[in-house]
Each structure stands twice: as structure tokens, then as C-alpha cells.
């Protein structure tokens, strides 16, 4: 270790000495002649390779949706909601990995449109009782809200409301429908 450091120091000193020797008097600056003009094509010299012809490559426009969302009225916006709902297991308010992904997307959207106020509706399928489902829907909405807050969305931009099993999205009486009705659904209430 010590030996190696010594070697390095010696080498540096040597280099400095070389540099000092080479640095005598700066040369006097003289105007230099401009380079000769490129040979014109009319001359007999051998033509070089053809000049490449450039054309701009079209780039796809940024998705128009962002601009549209900003200008769309609330009703139209909510009919084709840009938000992804969160779906839940039976009698659960736990947000699974898929739900977290959806909320990640929704959080980005809310960051992009910082004036939007969003109501998170909590819904349940028809299998529980009506009264308990009002409470369960509230828990689901609160779970989604808490997760969005953890992603940095201010709580005062997020409202919750539970509709229990009052407003099923799918009318069927099987798991296909039920799984779509157990959800936290996002509605833009002002923008």
C-alpha cells in the first residue's frame, strides 16, 4: 500500500516536470488563411458520395385524451370514467395487488389534474343484507381513499359515499356480476 502510493507520487512529479519543460513561450497568434472552398461539382474532380436527403420522421402525437379530459364536462367524463375502479373479495375491504395497481393509475390521474375533486363510491354485491352493506361499502370507499392518500393525494380532494347494494353495476345474480359490483367506483364531482 505505502509502496504503491510512493510510486504514484513519483510518477506525478515526473509528469509535472515534463509539463514545465514543454511550456516555454506561447506561439504568436497569426491569422490563418481560410480553408479552400469545397470543389464545385463543375470541376473535374471525382464526385464524393451523394448528399443524404433528410426527411423528418413523423412522431405520434401525445395522447389526445389528456387534453380532452381537461376540457370534457363532468357528466361525459364520468360516463367514460378515466379512473380504474377497485374490486373487492366478498365481505372484504382489503385492496389487493390489482387494486393497488388501479389506484396507482388513479393517483397519477389525480396528480395530473390537481383541481379535480373525486368522490369514491363504495358498492357491494347483493348477497349481504342491505343495512350491513351500507357499512361495508363505506369501508371499501375509505380503504381506497386511504390508499390514495398514502400515494400523496390530499385527503380533501377525496370524498366517500357508500351505496351498499343500492346501485349494482351488473344486474346478474352470479359471481360474474357480483365481482363487478363489489367495488370502489370513482366519480369526478368537480374540476
Amino acid at each position, binding site marked *: 500500500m505505502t509502496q504503491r502510493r510512493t510510486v504514484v507520487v513519483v510518477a506525478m512529479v515526473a509528469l509535472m516536470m515534463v509539463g514545465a519543460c514543454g511550456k516555454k513561450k506561447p506561439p504568436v497568434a497569426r491569422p490563418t488563411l481560410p480553408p479552400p472552398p469545397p470543389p464545385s461539382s463543375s470541376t473535374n474532380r471525382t464526385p464524393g458520395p451523394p448528399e443524404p436527403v433528410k426527411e423528418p420522421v413523423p412522431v405520434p402525437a401525445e395522447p389526445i385524451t389528456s387534453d380532452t379530459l381537461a376540457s370534457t364536462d363532468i357528466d361525459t367524463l364520468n360516463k367514460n370514467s378515466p379512473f380504474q375502479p377497485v374490486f373487492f373479495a366478498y*365481505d372484504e375491504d382489503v385492496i389487493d395487488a390489482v387494486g393497488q395497481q388501479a389506484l396507482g393509475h388513479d393517483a397519477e390521474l389525480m396528480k395530473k389534474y390537481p383541481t379535480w375533486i373525486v368522490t369514491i363510491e363504495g358498492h357491494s354485491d347483493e348477497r349481504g*343484507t342491505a*343495512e*350491513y352493506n351500507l357499512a361495508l361499502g363505506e369501508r371499501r370507499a375509505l380503504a381506497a381513499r386511504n390508499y390514495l392518500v398514502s400515494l400523496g393525494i390530499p385527503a380533501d380532494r377525496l370524498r366517500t359515499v*357508500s351505496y351498499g347494494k343500492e*346501485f349494482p353495476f351488473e344486474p346478474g345474480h352470479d359471481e360474474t356480476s357480483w365481482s363487478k359490483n363489489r367495488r370502489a367506483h370513482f366519480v369526478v364531482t368537480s374540476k
Partner: protein
Amino acid sequence: MRTLTTSMIAASVALTLAQGAQPSAGSQEPPRQQGEVSISITGPPGLPPKYAVPDFIALTNDAETVAAAKTISQVLWDDLDFEREFYLISRDTYRTIPPATSIDQVPLDQWKQLGADGLIIGTVRKTASGVAVQVRLIEVASGRTALAKEYSGTLKNPRLYAHTASDEIHQQQRNLRGVARTKLAFTSDRDGERMKGPVIDRGISNIYISDYDGANQTRVTVSRSLDITPAWSPDRNSIAYTSYRSDFPDILIQFIYEGKVPFKPAAGSSEKQNFLPAWSPDGTQLAFTTNRDHNNEIYVVNRDGTNLRRLTNHPAIDVTPTWSPTGNQIAFTSDRTGSPQIWIMNADGSEPQRITNEGFCDRPTWSPAPFNEIAYASRNGAGFDIKVFDFASRTSKTITDGIGSNESPAFSPNGRHIAFTSTRAGKEQIFLIDRDGKNLRQVTRAGMNRYPNWSQ
């Protein structure tokens, strides 16, 4: 009793607009006949007395009076049959007996042959101001009058005379508080109106009331949103309910016969949402569910919005409270053991304890005295059945029969009947059933009808 009757009638008149019958019960009652009070009509040993209720006599011959006479007797027959205290002889079998032409000239021998122990004869007579209705309960064996009443009022709702007479007969003969003049409140989407505001196309629901038997169904709220979970105040003048008209659920107290702006005792906001109100038995307080702690908890507030206090404090769901008849305890649904079960606690929130241990229980409804029971919905396979928990035996029995899904039980004020929601006939409708599982009847048919509540 007299006061109750009068206020009920005043309420009924104000309500209607459509009904408007105004019998001043007992005000023009003829002098009591000797022995009236002491007569209790009995049947054969071990059997209920048999009653016959032939068409009332129309003393004036106009069509309205004639129709009213028939309606009153038919409804009175149904009202008396409802409590199952008497055996009501089928009206089809009366044909052989010539109709009486006067309340004092009744062919008692023929009624005796038919097997009647008690006979109810009545008259309807048009008067300058409306109508006069006489009702007489006769002990067939002796020919003595057990009860005689005369009512006056309008003819807009003849059923109310029958209901009033039925309640008086049950009171006098059986010392029973009948339910003929009680009312139901429930939620209905029958008008097919759509929700205001943004988003998806959604139907609305409003609060309706009806007679106990489903007659005279009348809408009492006009929101363009969801009005659900009605609860009659004990004085029957107002209904507390959950309304989404501000885009979040809040509790409204609406004086349905006065047209005032509804009062919001829990002063809701988007951060303090309130739902599922339940009146204390004395009508001074409301228990309800609220999310103001970022979790559903049971709170109580005075009717005027003062003295708000929290009863539950648990991260689980606590929802849908109901008061014990004394007001000392509150039952509610909680999933703090992992699934929704029925719990009870003191009215100050202390000593919560679980009373059910089943798959999924909800919507407890505490019975009135003398029964000490809690009705609730309990999962049974794909649907629910109404069960009743008895505090004396600490056991539950199933009231409904496993057909359809049966939810949201509400006791009648005498504790003998339960109104509930059922899908047994297709869409959800309101049904009534006796506490022993008999006497099932459907009382709504238009649209979808839910969340029944039974007035005092």
C-alpha cells in the same frame, strides 16, 4: 287512549289530502247499555269465539254509502282476522241469512245456527257533514250488546272506521292492543324516476307510508335521490330516514303531516355521514350509524340535535342500532369477531356483548314488551331468513321458511307481527308474518319495496 286516537285522526286528516276520513271516535257514542263492560264473548271450551261480520246496513241509499257499508264490514272482518284472537266465519256463508234492515232487528237464531258466538252489526248513514257509522258487537247466545260505538266523519276513507272499530273490539274483548290503525313506512322505487346529478343512470327511491294492511300507499318524500331506512317516531307525527339528497347519506326528520323543511339532527356533511336512524322508545333520542371517525360507529343524538355522543369505539363495522323497549339497551350489528353478528350494549355504550354466533346476522329489531326478543336477518344458504332471538331461553328460532331472501325485519307495536323484505315473489316486496311464522301476507306489489318500519 282517547288522546292517542284523536292525534292519530288529526294526523290522518292532515295527511290526506286523499283520504280525509275523520271519525271522531266515540264522541257521539250512545249511552252504554247495561252490562256492556262485563260481557266477554267466549267460544266453546278451548276454542276461540266465532265471529261473523255481515255487510253493514246502508241507511241512506246512495251508491257511496252502500259501497262504504260493504267496505267497512269487509275490512273489519280482515282486521279482526289479522290478530287471530277470533275465528272469523267466512263471509261467503252468510248468504242464507237475510240481511238485517235495522241494527235492532237481527235474526239471531240464524246466526246462532251458523255457529256465530259474536255478531258485528253496523250501519252507515249519510249526514249533512259526512257520514255516521254505528257498530255493535252482539253476544249471539244472549242477544246482549257487548260493545256499541258510533263514529262520524267523511267518507273518503271508509277503511278507517273499520280499523278503529277493530282496535276497540280487540281492546275490550281481549285486552289486546290491535294494529289496525298502525301504519307502515317503507322505501319504494315505483315511480321510476331517475337520479339527479352526474354519472350512471340510476333509479331513485322515496319513502312511502301505507295502512298496516298495505292499503292507501302514499309517497311522503320528494327527493331525486335515495331516501331509505324510514323509522316512525313513537308519536307517529314524523319519520326519520336516511337521505342521499346532499350526495352523501344524512338523517332527516320529516313531519309528514306538516310539510315543514326536514330537520337534520346529526348535522351531516361529506365528512360526517349518518344513516340508519332508530328512535328511542320515548322519542327523545335517535341512535344511528356514522362514519365521522373514519369507521362506522354507533352514536346517539337528541331529537333536537343536541347531546351527540359516541357509543361504540371499535375498528370493526358497527351498524344498524335498535333500542330495547325500556331504552336502557341498544342492539346493533358488528363484525368485530370476523363476521356480522348481533350485539347488545347498555345505552351508554358499556358492556357490549355478542348474542348470535351464526354465519351472517344483521338488522336487529328489538320487540316491544311483553316479548323480550330481537328479530334479525340470518344467512340461510344463498339467502336470508328472519329469526327471532329470545332472551329468556337464549335461543333463536327461524320465522320465515327459506323461500327467497328475507331481510330487514320490523316488529308491529304489539309484538305479534313482523314486517320484512322478501324476494319470494320476484323483486323485493314488503311482507307481514306473525311471530310464529304463520299468517304470511304480501302488502306491496308496485315497483321494488324495501326497509319496512311499523308505526306505533
